[in-house]
């Protein structure tokens, strides 16, 4: 047993921490967040130069061929900075789906551009009847000449505002189990009939509404087999989920540091507020949340990387714990901070926003607890 990072991972972490400190201070992160695109091409290029964009993609497709744990090291540091990038949508989630289910030709044509960051892809899975199980995919794709025609609405899709391509889950047959009848399509965002609108509000990612109106997709752009999309999505989304958990862990660790620091410097009643036990209670809730998130996440990542049994169960535990912890620890941090915590210039809200939107993304605690109940044969 060894719960430490390898020497190479430590180097990677130091490099990522330096990068975030120099290139992604909170003023820069705030600017990116306030930009309607929520995207900094400059930041994206720098991350590409460092080889981080494609790190999870195999080397034969232009990536770095790193495993989930290596990638998680970068994710923790991105979380610490609350950095918004389309990395998770494009070079993790969509890339993993293509790696899992794409043909050799599709991998060769799609992955290298995702690995360099030249192209950005977003997953269009959820709909107005929001959910992350197979039953939530209701939008229809009907067979047409040489392919399929898509009609319907995808909702709350992160990063679609900067995407070149969409990876769309749609229903090609119904009547069987919810798992059967889902098909995955790669659709150019500029294709005729696709329209996208960014939704404003309090979300850590820009969420979009995408409507498909008689959008024709060639059969060559089906990922995996027709009706067989769920068996590709499920393992790919598990892997994408743990990196999201690593991001939340890093973000939580930063919230802890900010809160401890504030408790030691803010004076009230003639003493730093950290000396009040009721303030300490909040700090303890924060550190417990961060560590619960960290070790459930690490164990799930280790099981996935090493093909250990029970990996899915650990993913469910990690996401349920990380979503709940991150949400609650941000609340605790606001209790510690009082008024200054909701001041945008102070920056805590960047984490709080993330804690609200990532709570649901790739499945909320209820969804993952239901999956866990099934895995435990309850």
């Amino acid at each position, binding site marked *: 047993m060894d719960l430490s990072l390898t020497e190479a991972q430590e180097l990677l972490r130091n490099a990522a921490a330096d990068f975030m400190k120099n290139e992604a201070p909170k003023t820069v992160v705030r600017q990116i967040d306030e930009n309607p695109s929520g995207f900094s091409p400059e930041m994206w290029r720098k991350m590409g130069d460092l080889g981080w964009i494609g790190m999870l993609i195999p080397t034969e497709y232009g990536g770095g061929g790193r495993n989930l744990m290596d990638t998680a090291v970068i994710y923790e540091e991105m979380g610490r900075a609350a950095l918004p990038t389309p990395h998770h949508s494009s070079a993790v989630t969509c890339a993993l789906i293509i790696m899992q289910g794409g043909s050799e030709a599709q991998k060769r044509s799609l992955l290298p551009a995702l690995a360099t960051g030249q192209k950005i892809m977003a997953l269009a899975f959820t709909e107005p009847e929001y959910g992350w199980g197979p039953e939530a995919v209701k939008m229809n794709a009907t067979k047409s000449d040489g392919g399929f025609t898509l009609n319907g609405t995808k909702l709350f899709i992160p990063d679609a505002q900067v995407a070149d391509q969409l990876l769309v889950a749609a229903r090609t047959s119904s009547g069987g189990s919810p798992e059967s009848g889902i098909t995955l399509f790669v659709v150019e965002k500029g294709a005729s009939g696709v329209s996208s609108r960014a939704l404003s509000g309090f979300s850590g990612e820009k969420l979009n509404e995408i409507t498909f109106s008689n959008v024709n997709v060639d059969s060559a752009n089906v990922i995996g087999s027709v009706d067989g999309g769920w068996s590709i999505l499920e393992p790919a989304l598990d892997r994408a989920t743990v990196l999201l958990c690593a991001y939340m862990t890093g973000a939580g660790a930063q919230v802890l540091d900010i809160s401890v620091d504030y408790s030691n410097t803010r004076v009230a009643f003639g003493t730093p507020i950290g000396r009040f036990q009721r303030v300490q209670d909040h700090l303890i809730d924060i550190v417990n949340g961060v560590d619960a998130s960290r070790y459930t996440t690490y164990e799930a990542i280790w099981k996935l990387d090493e093909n250990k049994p029970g990996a899915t169960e650990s993913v469910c535990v990690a996401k349920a714990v990380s979503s709940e912890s991150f949400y609650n620890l941000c609340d605790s941090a606001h209790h510690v901070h009082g008024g200054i915590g909701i001041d945008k210039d102070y920056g805590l809200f960047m984490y709080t926003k993330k804690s609200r939107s990532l709570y649901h993304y790739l499945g909320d605690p209820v969804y993952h*607890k239901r999956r866990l109940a099934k895995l435990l044969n*309850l």
Partner: protein
Amino acid sequence: MDFEFYYSQEQEEFRKEVRGWLKQNVPTDLHDAVDPLDLPHETFRRGIDFRIKLAEKGWYAATWPKEYGGGGLSSSHKVIIDEELAEYDLPSIAHGDTGNGLFGPAVMVWGTEEQKRSFLPIVTSGKSVTWQCFTEPEAGSDLASMRTTAIRHGDEFIVNGNKIFVGQLWDVDYLYTLAITAPDNPRHNNIGAFFIPANLPGITLGHLDLISGDGKRTIYFEDVHVPATQLIGGDTDGWKVTQTSLELEHGGSGRAVDGDKLMDKLLEFAKSTTRDGKPISSDPENQDVLVDAYIGYQVNRLFGMRNYWMRSMRKPFTYEGSQFSLNRKTYGPNLAEAMLKVTGPYALIKDQPWAPFMGKLEHYTRDAIRIPHPGGTVEVQKLIMARRLGVSRTREQGAAYI
């Protein structure tokens, strides 16, 4: 990163040896009692007989240096021994007591060479039972406010006072305890730590009748003459000495062996008990309760594993020991609540044929009320964590350990 123990060929051979030896030497009729208060004296003594044999193999204080009666083995060997022992339902006394768990490590850090040579073989041989006796009627969370005194008269100390909520149901040979040695010194610099033979004149033991049913005792010291050779460290080193024991008791030793038998039993009960022809585990509300308890168990297991790893790698501790302790102290009662919600009154009775698992759930329902308090309450663990996070008036690091 690696969440599993890997064993070398040599260690796997060692496992075979341990397994074979246990099969030969664990009496087939030696079982723990559901309620410690029901443990017969004969079973208790047989538990000690067994651990003496274990000690003779070098597997009782397995990782301690051989010169002090230990086995001189690696922590991996210790994990193998613990895993194999966990296959048996032995009385806890057969595995150890606070002598090798808490007292020994403190002596290793703070004892003089002479003290190590005289005290450690007593606990590593398995022959003698040691109780850690710190709590007093008016010194629980605020341990330093103890009133028991040990006043030096030449080569001996005269001890007066009393301890409460300590020990176990049956025999004891040594008391690892604290007393005020320098009443005029400032707090924390006025305490001595002692290893006192329990049969000295003036020591009286009493029984407490507690809902947790774990046989806790009272101890009265009345003009007890304790030779100065029974001191650990110097006359006023007691507070430092006790910090090493408390760091361990507060979760600093971690836990390497996986498994929570009660969690397993709860899941088993829910899956195998039917209402209206359906297992009660299929009820959505029960599922919520069971899954939350299960997730709590996973987090607790991982904190224990993290601490075990930190200690075996000699990583410096800050808040982690108390964090694990705090987590156990909240997870434990949560599990009891989950049991009551899912099983109903079945968790409250001891009588057959209705009591599940021989009444283990009933015992846990009572015991879980105790869990948040001994070895530092939930509130004390939080105080320590705040200090270690560096926000309190007192900034501190983890206590010294070996």
